[in-house]
């Protein structure tokens, strides 16, 4: 790479001019090539650093990726089907559970009315018993309740006490007490049931109405389209008995 000497003959001068033009053109080619190289490097680096890496991959790799994706999609579809089946199963059992629960709730409501733990309303009678001579005992009043129950009364309230399976009528201390609460005449009894049947049962000849009358009192029955038994009682927890398996 020595610079050509300026002190050269005409023949040499011509030759050197030729060599110089060759060198210049060679330098131009080299410059073009290296410029293209720089351009290509930048282009490739930019292409490689794009977020879309798939565009740089070869066909084989793309096919492999595609296969993987297909397999994955199949697996996921299978999972979806499984989960949907599970969902259906759970919904079915949920529906069944809901139906069973609804039925159980209805039964519980019916039982609570019969047991006297819930207030009840419906057609029935209001019975008023007067006892001016104080002759009526616990037994007579119990007869009234028995008669009502025998006639199909579903909920009975005696005074302020709800009448149930364990209700006791006592008169050992003088006045009649229901479940330990003293009652005084006139006695009011509310019963839910078929009003006409209840009325008939109380006024049957030789029945409780005539007993009350013979003791100097008066038993009046008024049939109502709707009466409300508002008194409730709590269920005593069984101490000894437990439900036996079927």
């Amino acid at each position, binding site marked *: 790479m020595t610079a050509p000497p300026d002190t050269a003959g005409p023949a040499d001068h011509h030759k050197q001019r030729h060599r110089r033009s060759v060198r210049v053109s*060679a330098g131009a080619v080299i410059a073009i090539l290296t410029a293209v190289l720089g351009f290509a490097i930048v282009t490739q680096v*930019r292409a490689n650093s794009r977020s879309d890496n798939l565009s740089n991959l070869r066909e084989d790799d793309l096919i492999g990726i595609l296969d993987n994706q297909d397999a994955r999609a199949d697996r996921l579809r299978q999972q979806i089907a499984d989960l949907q089946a599970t969902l259906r199963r759970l919904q079915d059992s949920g529906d069944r559970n809901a139906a069973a629960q609804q039925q159980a709730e209805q039964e519980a409501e019916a039982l609570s009315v019969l047991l006297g733990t819930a207030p009840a309303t419906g057609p029935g009678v209001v019975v008023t018993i007067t006892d001016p001579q104080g002759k009526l005992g616990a037994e007579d009043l119990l007869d009234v309740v028995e008669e009502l129950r025998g006639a199909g009364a579903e909920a009975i309230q005696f005074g302020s006490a709800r009448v149930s399976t364990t209700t006791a009528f006592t008169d050992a201390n003088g006045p009649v007490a229901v479940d330990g609460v003293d009652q005084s005449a006139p006695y009011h009894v509310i019963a839910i049931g078929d009003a006409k049947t209840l009325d008939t049962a109380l006024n049957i000849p030789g029945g409780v109405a005539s007993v009350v009358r013979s003791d100097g009192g008066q038993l009046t029955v008024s049939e109502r389209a709707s009466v409300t038994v508002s008194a409730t009682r709590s269920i005593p927890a069984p101490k000894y008995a437990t439900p036996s398996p079927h």
Partner: protein
Amino acid sequence: MIAAFALIAGVVAGLIFRPTVPNWLEPYLPIAVVAALDAVFGGLRARLDGVFDAKVFVISFVSNVLVAALIVYLGDKLGVGSQLSTAVVVVLGIRIFGNAAAIRRHVFRA
């Protein structure tokens, strides 16, 4: 000197024009770049050795690029494209390292 300026000019042009690689060129461009780099390092070494010849450089540059592209093309046709690309890159990398070592000896005398 011209080559270095031209290289920088090429880089600047690439940055300015933001070209996208055409599809048919995509598999060849990286290999061609590595092959060209090998030629450039070889030319630099030759220059430092005092045996640089412009004709040799131009021919080795072009032939390097063409041969590299041809190998990739053949590899793709034979179904071993990625392996052959790796092989080309490895061989060219070894050559570049050898040239770089020679250049280093010239520059740092070590």
